[in-house]
C-alpha cells in the first residue's frame, strides 16, 4: 500500500511534458544515421544487384549507363571453370582459417585461466599489440619474415633442420603461399577471438566446474559437456564473424602478392575486384559480388539472431 501511495508522486517526473517529449523527437535523433547508412550502404547494395544484371564495361562507364542483359552475367560465371576453383578455394581458405583460429583461441583462452596473474598480463598485452596492428602493416611484416632471401622464417626452419629452406620462395607454389596467408590471417584473428572467449570463460560459474570435477569428469569432458555448451552463443557469434571476415578476404592476399596476385591466389573478393577494376567488366564483377553476399547472408542471419538474443534488445 505504501508503494501505491508514493508511486504517483514520482511518476510525473519521468513523464513531465516538455519540448523534447514529442513523438517525433526520437525519429529525428536517428534520422541522420539512417540517411547515411541508406545512402552509402543500402543504396549501393541495391545498385550492386542492378549492376549485376547489366553489361557494364568501359564504354558504359563513360556513358554512365549500362546495357540490360538479364541473367547473362550469372550464366557466364556459372559456366566459368575459374569461378568454380575460386569458390572452392575461398571455402577451403575460410574453413581452414576459422578452424585454426577457433582451436588456437580456445586453447589460449583456457590456458589463460590456468596461468599465474603475471603471465596472464603478459599474454593479454601481447594479444592487444597484435590486435592493434593494422592489417597492411602486418602483411608487410610477414612479407619480410617470409622473404625468400633474407627472411627470418627460412633461416629458422633451416637451423631447426626442418629442411633446406635457403632461398625458398613460398609463393612459387600456391598451396604454400596460401598456407602463409592462412598464418597471416589466423595470427591477426587470434587476439579478438581469444579475448572474447576468455571473457566468456570468466563468466562460467566455478561451482559448476567444481561439481563436474567432484563427479569425476576429466578436463576434456568438463570442457566439452559443461563449458562449451555454456559458451555456445559466444562461439556462434565468433564463428559467424570470422567466417564473414575470412570469406571476404582481400587485403592480405592482394597486398602480400604486391597488388598483382596470379589467378592461383584468387579468392572470391579478389576475383570480383579483378573482373571489375582489372578488366573493366563491372557487370560480371557485380554478379560475383552478389554471389558472395548471398553466401554470407546465411551466416549473417545466424550472427544477427545470436547477437539480438545476447543483447536482449527485443
Amino acid at each position, binding site marked *: 500500500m505504501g508503494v501505491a501511495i508514493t508511486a504517483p508522486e514520482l511518476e510525473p*517526473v*519521468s513523464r513531465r511534458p516538455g519540448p*523534447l517529449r514529442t*513523438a517525433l523527437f*526520437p*525519429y529525428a*535523433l*536517428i534520422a*541522420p*544515421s539512417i540517411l*547515411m*547508412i541508406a545512402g*552509402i*550502404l543500402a*543504396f*549501393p*547494395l541495391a*545498385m*550492386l544487384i542492378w*549492376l549485376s544484371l547489366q553489361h557494364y564495361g568501359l564504354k558504359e562507364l563513360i556513358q554512365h549507363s549500362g546495357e540490360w542483359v538479364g541473367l547473362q552475367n550469372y550464366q557466364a560465371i556459372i559456366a566459368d571453370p575459374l569461378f568454380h576453383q575460386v569458390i572452392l578455394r575461398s571455402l577451403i581458405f575460410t574453413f581452414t582459417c576459422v578452424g585454426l583460429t577457433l582451436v588456437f583461441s580456445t586453447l589460449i583462452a583456457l590456458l*589463460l585461466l*590456468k*596461468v599465474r596473474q603475471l*603471465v596472464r598480463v*603478459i*599474454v593479454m598485452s601481447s594479444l*592487444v*599489440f*597484435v590486435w*592493434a*596492428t*593494422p*592489417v*597492411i*602493416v602486418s602483411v*608487410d*611484416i*610477414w*612479407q*619480410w*619474415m617470409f*622473404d625468400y*632471401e*633474407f627472411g627470418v622464417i627460412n633461416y629458422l626452419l633451416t637451423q631447426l633442420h626442418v629442411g633446406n629452406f635457403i632461398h625458398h620462395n613460398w609463393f612459387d607454389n600456391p598451396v604454400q603461399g596460401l598456407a602463409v596467408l592462412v598464418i597471416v590471417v589466423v595470427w591477426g584473428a587470434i*587476439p579478438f577471438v581469444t579475448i572474447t572467449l576468455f571473457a566468456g570463460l570468466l563468466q562460467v560459474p566455478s561451482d559448476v566446474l567444481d561439481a563436474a570435477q567432484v563427479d569425476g569428469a576429466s578436463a576434456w569432458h568438463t570442457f566439452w559437456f559443461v563449458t562449451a555448451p555454456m559458451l555456445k552463443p559466444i562461439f556462434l557469434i565468433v564463428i559467424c564473424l570470422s567466417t*564473414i571476415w575470412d570469406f*571476404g578476404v582481400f*587485403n592480405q592476399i*592482394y597486398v602480400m602478392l604486391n*597488388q*598483382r596476385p596470379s589467378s592461383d591466389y584468387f579468392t572470391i*573478393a579478389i576475383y*570480383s575486384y579483378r573482373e571489375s*577494376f582489372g578488366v573493366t567488366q563491372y557487370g560480371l564483377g557485380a554478379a560475383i*559480388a552478389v554471389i558472395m*553476399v548471398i553466401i*554470407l547472408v546465411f551466416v*549473417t542471419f545466424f*550472427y*544477427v539472431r545470436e547477437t539480438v538474443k545476447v543483447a536482449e534488445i527485443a
Partner: protein
Amino acid sequence: MIAPGAAQGIRTETARAAAGTAVSFNILQQARQLVYDALGIAVAIVMLFPIYWMVATAFKPGQDILRLDPKWFPNPITLQNFQDAIARPFFLDDVKNSLIIVGVMLVLALAISFFAAVGTARFGFRGRTAYLVMIIAVQMVPLNALIIPLYLMLDGVGQTDTLAGVIAVYLAVVLPFMVWTLRGFVANIPPELEESAMIDGCTRFGAFIRITFPLIGPGLVATAIFGFIQAWNEYIVAYVLLSSPENQTLTVWLASFTTNHGPEWGPLMAAATLTGLPVVAFFLILQRYLAGGLTAGAVKG
C-alpha cells in the same frame, strides 16, 4: 545416518593419509603450474615476435638487415630507415590526408551516432527494435562487395579521387558500430540520475548536460578510438577511390611501397612502424576505458 563424531573421525583419517602424499602432490602441482606458465610465455613470444621483428629491423642499419644469419637485436641502432621513409615522395601528403579523413569523419560520426544512441537508449518508439537489428545486420555487409557500386556512384557525382568521397564512405562504415557501442554506454547510465538532478531543480536539458553527458564522455572516447582505428587501417576503399598519389592515404602509400620501389626492408619496416604507432597508442588507451564499468555504483547507496 553417521554421527557427527564419526564423520570427524573419518575426516582426520583421510587428512592423515593425505599428509603423506601432500609433499609430492604439491611438487606435482607446482610443476604443472610451471608448464602452464611456460606455455603462456611461449604464446606471448610467438604472437609478439613479428611485431618485434618489424621494430628491430626498422632500427638496424642496411648491412645488418640483409644478412643470411639474422641479427636478433638491433646493434648499432640507426634512425636512417625512418629518415628514408619520411623522405619518400608523398609520405607527408598521405599522412596529412589520413589525418584529415579520419578527423572530419570522426567529428561527423560522433555527432550522428550520439544522437542515435540517445534516441534508442532513452526513448521507446515504434520501429526501435527494427532499427537496432538493422544496425547489427548492416555491420556485416562486406565492404569488398560494395566497392564496385560505391566507385560507380561516387564517379557519377565526381567524388572519386577526393577526400570527401572517402570520408562519406568511412562515415557510413563506422556509424553502425559507433551507434551500437554508444547506445550501450547511454543505456548503462540510469535515468534516475537525471531524474534526481531534475528534482533538485535542473531542467531536463540541464540535467542531460550536467549529469549524463560527462558520464558518456568515456563512451565517446572509446567509440571515437574505434572509429579512428577502422578508418586509419582501411585499405580497399581508399585504394579504389583515390587514384593520384598526392590524394592517397597512409595505408595505400604503405601497400604500394614494395611495388613501386622493390623491397627495401629497412625503410619499409620503419614506415610500417610509423603507421602502426598511433593505432597501438590509441588501442592501449582504449583498453583502460573498456576495462571497468565506469558508472557501476553511481546509483548504489
